[in-house]
């Protein structure tokens, strides 16, 4: 597991119990930094690759650049699938550990694109691999081993999923401080796997959501202008991760899934021009937080907790405000906490001349039903839907970690 305390990073533990309950807020967290530290400001480091869980899910600091690449597997059989996962494992290990590219005769194509020079810098690079429900179809004889809750992401409230930008057999999530590191890693990974994997969709972005103090970019704001991630689960808190993120050995799941995590990707388009024309007070009422400070409505600071019990009629925070629906902060909803690891994206403009921007919402959880689906159910019909729409993404299962040299991603799945 990756840890955390790298130079200069001052992670606040103010949230151990109460504030951690805020993990459900999908779009907007909130907050103004109350500590004087530069969040995640230490020198970039290498994220160790080996672990019981995939280290990039919880590595800190959360680096600014992210990319999701979804692939279709054309591996003709289970043996070829295993070969692909071994190649992927070896390349990820090499990338994360900084293995220098081998030198070939100049008459041959170089093994490495050279984007990062002779010695690729650490750059907090990490890579996470997940698999979609489709991998458990008839092709590889894995149907009986499908994680119990893993299905093809259905159309949920307000969705307009584009099949060309949704789902996939294999999802690769790359994160690093700089976009060129992300691109470098993607090209190396694809080079190793292009005999079996073909791209289905790709999305990259910046300003990753994280709990206060965990990001290299301060408290990142999403493209609605609200600080996002204030109430996120603190990924350095192993007990919280065990409770909410990792599938455990005793869970009602196939044994191989222990140490894995359900991974939800929602490509949430934001109608930013429309949003920018909305009065500030209305924006804040829709989200439930003050825009600039990030404080819950009626409070002063990002890290203050909203007190909904004192506001049963929604006079301060409307009952249908995004953060109140996402995380009502009641005992009954305390189980629906998620670890968010998303980023903002921008990819040109649409046929109407409107900017095509939004949030690649990414979250990890131990149970889809207790986690994302519970939160999404509460958000169904929220007024914010007028400004946002899910256009893609998918449900995946982040594989358990690679425990040591010789192991490979998905080993317990394929060797069960």
């Amino acid at each position, binding site marked *: 597991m990756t840890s955390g305390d790298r130079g200069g990073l001052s992670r606040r533990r103010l949230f151990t119990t109460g504030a951690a309950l805020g993990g459900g807020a999908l779009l907007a967290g909130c907050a103004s930094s109350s500590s004087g530290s530069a969040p995640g400001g230490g020198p970039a480091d290498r994220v160790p690759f080996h672990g019981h869980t995939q280290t990039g899910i919880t590595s800190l600091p959360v680096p600014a650049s992210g990319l999701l690449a979804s692939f279709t597997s*054309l591996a003709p059989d289970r043996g070829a699938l295993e070969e692909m996962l071994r190649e992927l494992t070896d390349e990820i290990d090499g990338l994360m550990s900084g293995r220098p*590219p081998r030198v070939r005769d100049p*008459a041959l194509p170089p093994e490495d694109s050279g984007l990062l020079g002779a010695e690729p810098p650490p750059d907090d690079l990490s890579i996470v691999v997940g698999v979609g429900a489709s991998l458990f179809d008839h092709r590889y004889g894995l149907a009986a081993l499908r994680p119990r809750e893993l299905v093809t992401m259905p159309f949920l409230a307000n969705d307009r999923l584009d099949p060309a930008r949704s789902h996939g057999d294999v999802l690769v999530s790359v994160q690093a401080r700089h976009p060129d590191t992300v691109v470098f890693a993607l090209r190396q990974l694809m080079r190793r796997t292009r*005999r079996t994997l073909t791209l289905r969709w790709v999305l990259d972005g910046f300003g990753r959501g994280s709990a206060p103090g965990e990001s290299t970019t301060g408290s990142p704001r999403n493209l609605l202008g609200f600080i996002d991630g204030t109430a996120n689960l603190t990924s350095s808190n192993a007990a919280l991760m065990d409770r909410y993120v990792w599938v455990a050995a005793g869970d009602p799941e196939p044994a191989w899934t222990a140490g894995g995590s359900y991974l939800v990707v929602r490509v949430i388009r934001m109608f930013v021009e429309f949003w920018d024309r909305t009065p500030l007070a209305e924006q804040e009422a829709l989200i439930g937080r003050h825009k600039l400070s990030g404080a819950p409505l009626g409070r002063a600071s990002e890290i203050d907790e909203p007190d909904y019990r004192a506001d049963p009629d929604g006079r301060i925070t409307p009952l249908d405000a995004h953060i109140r629906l996402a995380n009502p902060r009641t005992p009954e909803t305390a189980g629906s906490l998620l670890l968010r690891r998303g980023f903002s994206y921008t990819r040109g403009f649409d046929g109407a001349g409107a900017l095509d921007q939004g949030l690649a919402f990414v979250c990890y959880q131990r149970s889809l039903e207790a986690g994302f689906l519970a939160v999404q159910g509460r958000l169904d019909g929220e007024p914010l839907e007028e400004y946002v729409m899910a256009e893609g993404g998918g449900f995946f299962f982040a594989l358990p970690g690679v425990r040591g040299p010789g192991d490979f991603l998905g080993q317990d799945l394929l060797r069960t």
Partner: protein
Amino acid sequence: MPSTGSRQVLPLVGVLGAAVVVLAACGGAPPAPPAPAAPAAAPAAPDRTQMIDQAVAQYEDYVRQQVADTVAGTRVLTDAVRAGDLEAAKAAFAPSRVGWERIEPIAGLVEEIDGAVDARVDDFAGVEDPEFTGWHRIEYILWEQGQTAAAVPFADQLDADLQTLDQQIRTLRIPALDMARGSAELIEEVSQGKITGEEDRYSKTDLSDFQANIDGSVAVIGFLRPALQASRPAVLPAIDQGFADVDAGLASLRRPDGSFVPYCQENDEYPSPLCPAPTVTTQQVDTFKVQLAGLSEDVAMVPGVLGLQ
């Protein structure tokens, strides 16, 4: 047209064999610190040089034959255009291109010919641009305009341009490096232009070009096989398997008479006159993509394996 006589077969002495050593070192060797790689100076075995010379000579014959076939096959197309026989012209379109598509990278050694005979409309301001000539202008007129009359001047010009190619190719010396690289370029052609359906967008005959590109790549590897066997035979099984896999996929898309189904992908718009329904599944296209990707990686090694620089 400039003389192509200055293109010479590259001297190979001193380069052959160097790649073999390095390649062997790549398999499971411990990471080496980055450093400029010095080509090994192992002297080339003269018989390998002769093998490559012989491969080039055989390939030059092959190229000349393909150009001759193209001239003859295109004449069937252009005669039909001039005779006003629309259906005969359409039927002759794909076959007329086979020889050309087999040797397309080599035709690039003849200046300006590719732009004259095989440019796509994307290279021009529009379909009415007078500079837009060759097969695809004719294809546009036959299928989109449904007539032959407007295609007559372009048919005449295509014949003339191919005659020029035929003349020039007779004296063209093909450098071994261009030959070896051409094999990879043909795979890239398929990966970038054919698989997308953009090459023959009006006639939907992309699969015929696809097969011809593969045939041309197979031919190069065939002529180079003795030299590859002598240099690094380990590269051949993967390449052979790759070609066999692609050929099998293509064979499944042939009609009983041997011709290909129109290339109608699932994400095209339906129905259209040539494509009442998809003929190729996304799964088939994706399978081609990964097969071609693997072939690209393998065939890209060939020039270096042979020490050609």
